[in-house]
């Protein structure tokens, strides 16, 4: 969003023309400006670079570019018609007919070409725009300013203040945070959620600060905001996901064309290193939990082992090549709309089956591997995401099995006799109470097995992401559409 706080300088009535000497089109139109000054309407010229340009006209130097910034000058020359302090017409560059329409004068610049494009305004110069955004908009930022002395290493200073997840973070300067905020239409002081464990309201601004630190680009910000909303509620229960001794964190699965547009990886090495969007979106969410929510390891985070995905675990679903509806859509999101699903998950582990060419055999492998999730005798308490690689998915696609069929077939293979599950069975003390020995019990609750299509094109592999205490007791996966 364009954030402007200082009220815009009022333009004088008549004609306002914004130029710069560096622009050849501006120089070409000087005779026309002189022509207009001899007309009935008052003419005010603002010059962006050289205060003496045009020499023949008494121009006002827009030295801090306040006029250009506040009146959204993107091209020079720009001609604006102002009546009673209000803009009523505008044209950019040189077009005789346009200039004549805006100024109400005929016969302008008859010896000039019919039209000529203008040049970029200094107020949108990429080298200047960040500092201008701060100059004219940073007063909307409410965060405390922390001054780092010139002799101090700012990266070390951020470590010292406990702001990082153990890796270096990008210094959240006003320039960077203002640039990050261009990624959303929401106001910086909009409250997004209440973040556990300290139960603190988090604003768009605080999310943007942490997104800068994580290394996000502005176009990732809506995904970060949506993920923060998705985890900070009683349904997902990030408090419990953080506080548990189990090794889980928020796993973020992104679906929709926007995930591709920001360059997310859904293919080769999908859970791995090397993709900025995947890694920084997940990291930003965890930095919000840490810095705003106060959720730090060894404090409220009591994980016995944790897992490396607690720094960031975020990836895109390969919905273009998927034989199935995207996960988000299967969970209620509007088709074709960007959405993400958050899941309380541990690290992924590989399922290898290089022989199966029929869906029944592959389902048998998936069921056998899923059976061991957390403990082969554990039932109903934990959900899982099965991330099916493209080469495995092809086996199902060729057999015409849709998402529901695959899930049903796997679940059908995971109806387990109680005699195998009770305490002491198979020499394992862990298990369910003895009175359930004659029951047949499912590994997963209804809806507890989530299917995602992702991974590289080569390799007859899939992956399992194990969950955490499910349902009302613990955490439910949450799917949310991404809003900008």
């Amino acid at each position: 969003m364009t954030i402007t706080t200082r009220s815009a300088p009022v333009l004088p009535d008549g004609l306002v023309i914004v130029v710069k000497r560096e622009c050849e089109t501006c120089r070409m139109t000087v005779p026309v400006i002189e022509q207009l000054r001899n007309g009935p309407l008052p003419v005010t010229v603002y010059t962006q670079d050289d205060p003496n340009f045009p020499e023949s006209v008494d121009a006002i130097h827009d030295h801090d570019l306040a006029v250009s910034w506040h009146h959204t000058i993107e091209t020079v020359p720009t001609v604006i018609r102002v009546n009673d302090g209000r803009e009523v017409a505008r044209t950019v560059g040189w077009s005789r007919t346009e200039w004549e329409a805006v100024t109400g004068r005929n016969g302008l610049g008859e010896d000039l070409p019919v039209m000529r494009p203008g040049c970029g305004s200094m107020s949108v110069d990429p080298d200047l725009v960040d500092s201008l955004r701060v100059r004219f908009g940073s007063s909307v930022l409410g965060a405390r300013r922390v001054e780092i002395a010139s002799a101090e290493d700012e990266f070390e200073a951020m470590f010292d203040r406990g702001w990082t997840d153990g890796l270096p973070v990008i210094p959240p300067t006003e320039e960077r945070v203002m640039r990050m905020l261009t990624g959303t239409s929401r106001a910086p002081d909009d409250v997004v959620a209440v973040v556990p464990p300290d139960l603190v309201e988090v604003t768009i601004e605080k999310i943007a600060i942490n997104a800068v630190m994580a290394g996000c680009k502005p176009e990732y910000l809506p995904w970060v905001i949506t993920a923060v909303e998705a985890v900070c509620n009683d349904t997902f229960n990030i408090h419990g996901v953080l506080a548990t001794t189990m090794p889980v964190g928020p796993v973020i699965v992104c679906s929709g064309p926007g995930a591709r547009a920001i360059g997310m990886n859904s293919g080769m090495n999908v859970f791995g290193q090397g993709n900025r969007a995947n890694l920084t979106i997940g990291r930003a969410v965890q930095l919000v939990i840490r810095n705003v929510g106060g959720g730090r390891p060894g404090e409220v985070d009591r994980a016995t082992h944790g897992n490396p995905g607690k720094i960031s675990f975020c990836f895109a679903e390969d919905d273009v090549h998927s034989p199935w509806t995207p996960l988000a859509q299967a969970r209620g999101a509007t088709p074709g709309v960007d959405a993400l699903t958050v899941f309380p998950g541990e690290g992924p582990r590989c399922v290898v089956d290089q022989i199966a060419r029929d869906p029944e055999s592959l389902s048998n492998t998936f069921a056998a591997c899923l059976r061991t999730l957390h403990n082969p005798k554990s039932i109903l308490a934990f959900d899982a995401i099965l991330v099916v690689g493209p080469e495995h998915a092809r086996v199902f696609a060729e057999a015409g099995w849709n998402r529901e069929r695959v899930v049903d077939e796997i679940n059908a293979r995971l109806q387990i006799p109680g005699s195998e599950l009770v305490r002491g069975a198979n020499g394992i003390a862990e298990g369910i109470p003895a009175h359930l020995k004659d029951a047949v019990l499912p590994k997963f609750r209804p809806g507890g097995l989530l299917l995602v299509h992702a991974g590289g094109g080569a390799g007859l592999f899939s992956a399992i992401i194990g969950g955490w205490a499910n349902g009302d007791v613990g955490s439910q996966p949450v799917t949310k559409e991404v809003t900008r």
Partner: protein
Amino acid sequence: MTTLLDPTNERRVSTMERVGRPESLRGLTVGLLDISKARGDVFLDRLEERLSEMGADVRRFKKPTFTKPAPVDLRHEIATQCQVVIEALAD
């Protein structure tokens, strides 16, 4: 000099005075909060026996789930009814 924006919640930590340790539990109301972890009740049942023997008036409370903070109403109930509280974290 670099100016950074504070990424934290900017809260100041408030310090609260601890309630003094009672000389004896006799005649005091002791709340036992079961956080709903498996077998936490076994531990609390035994504690209740021992505390009752010591002359404490024991009241039992239970969180709906161990994964979420105790609801505000429950915390209020405990605070208004009890002089002492014991929270069981067990597996």
